[in-house]
């Protein structure tokens, strides 16, 4: 069995749903890329959800060892369910459709072309992911501090 590098284990895994038929699938995917490529490349990464759903051992090992945030595109919550079924450490689940209810004024385009307001909403979703990362960071800091105190 391949041993995960310590660095990889410390990263947060963000897995969007792969949805192909709805703009919300595209939004979740793009928001994930904003985080893992532009905003937090040092501390986040992603893997293919399809690999996890077909039961790939390495993908299962990753979700079990890393801290995971799921980004679901619709009510079926395929990303969250697949992570949970694989015994993953799911720390947060965000649902793009549910988030959209608070931004219904934004006119999202099509699945292949979100349009300017769709892109704006994507940045809002990315912001929500950042907040979840921040919560995980804070929790980690508290744990480190607690450990530090007990060691003194």
């Amino acid at each position, binding site marked *: 069995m391949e041993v995960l590098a310590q660095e990889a284990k410390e990263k947060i895994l963000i897995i969007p749903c*792969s949805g192909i038929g709805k703009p919300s699938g595209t939004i979740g995917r793009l928001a994930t*890329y904003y985080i893992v490529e532009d905003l937090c490349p040092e501390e986040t990464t992603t*893997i*293919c959800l*399809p*690999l996890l759903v077909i039961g790939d051992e390495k993908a299962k090992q990753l979700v079990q060892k890393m801290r995971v945030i799921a980004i679901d595109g619709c009510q*079926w919550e395929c990303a969250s369910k*697949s992570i949970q079924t694989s015994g993953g450490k799911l720390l947060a689940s965000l649902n793009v459709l549910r988030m959209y209810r608070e931004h219904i004024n934004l006119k999202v385009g099509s*699945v*292949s072309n979100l349009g300017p307001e769709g892109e704006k909403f994507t940045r809002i979703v990315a912001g929500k992911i950042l907040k979840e990362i921040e919560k995980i960071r804070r929790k980690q800091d508290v744990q480190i501090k607690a450990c530090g105190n007990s060691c003194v």
Partner: protein
Amino acid sequence: MSKSKLVGIVACSGEELLEGTVSRVAVWKVFESLKSSSVVTTCLPLFMAGHKQEREFVWTHPTVTIEGCEKRCAEKALRMFGGKPSATILVTDVEKETGLIPKSRVYLGEDGEKLADRVAEKVENEVKILLSKGGDNDE
């Protein structure tokens, strides 16, 4: 056996790879080009999550898979539930054939778009062949 003239396309849509993005963009290009109600697609994870309608579809209708890499997740998913792809297009094969490499997972760039066009053409050809046979899954 179904006599409806429908063909399914299932793309891997893998998030980690450039080719996963190419696979999903190719699906949209096929839909734009064919503008046909005879072609349908589904989210691969939704298919795997146990939706009866999606699974029954691949038992009764021919399906073309688009794979981003050699792991062939879409094909494996179909086989896991008793289906079998009528044709498979591997994006990495088309990359080798054409020398076209996408720029990034977010913006495919000019070459990436051309690559998606080539993949879409191949899928479209397969879909047309299958539709000319009546859309039955007689394999």
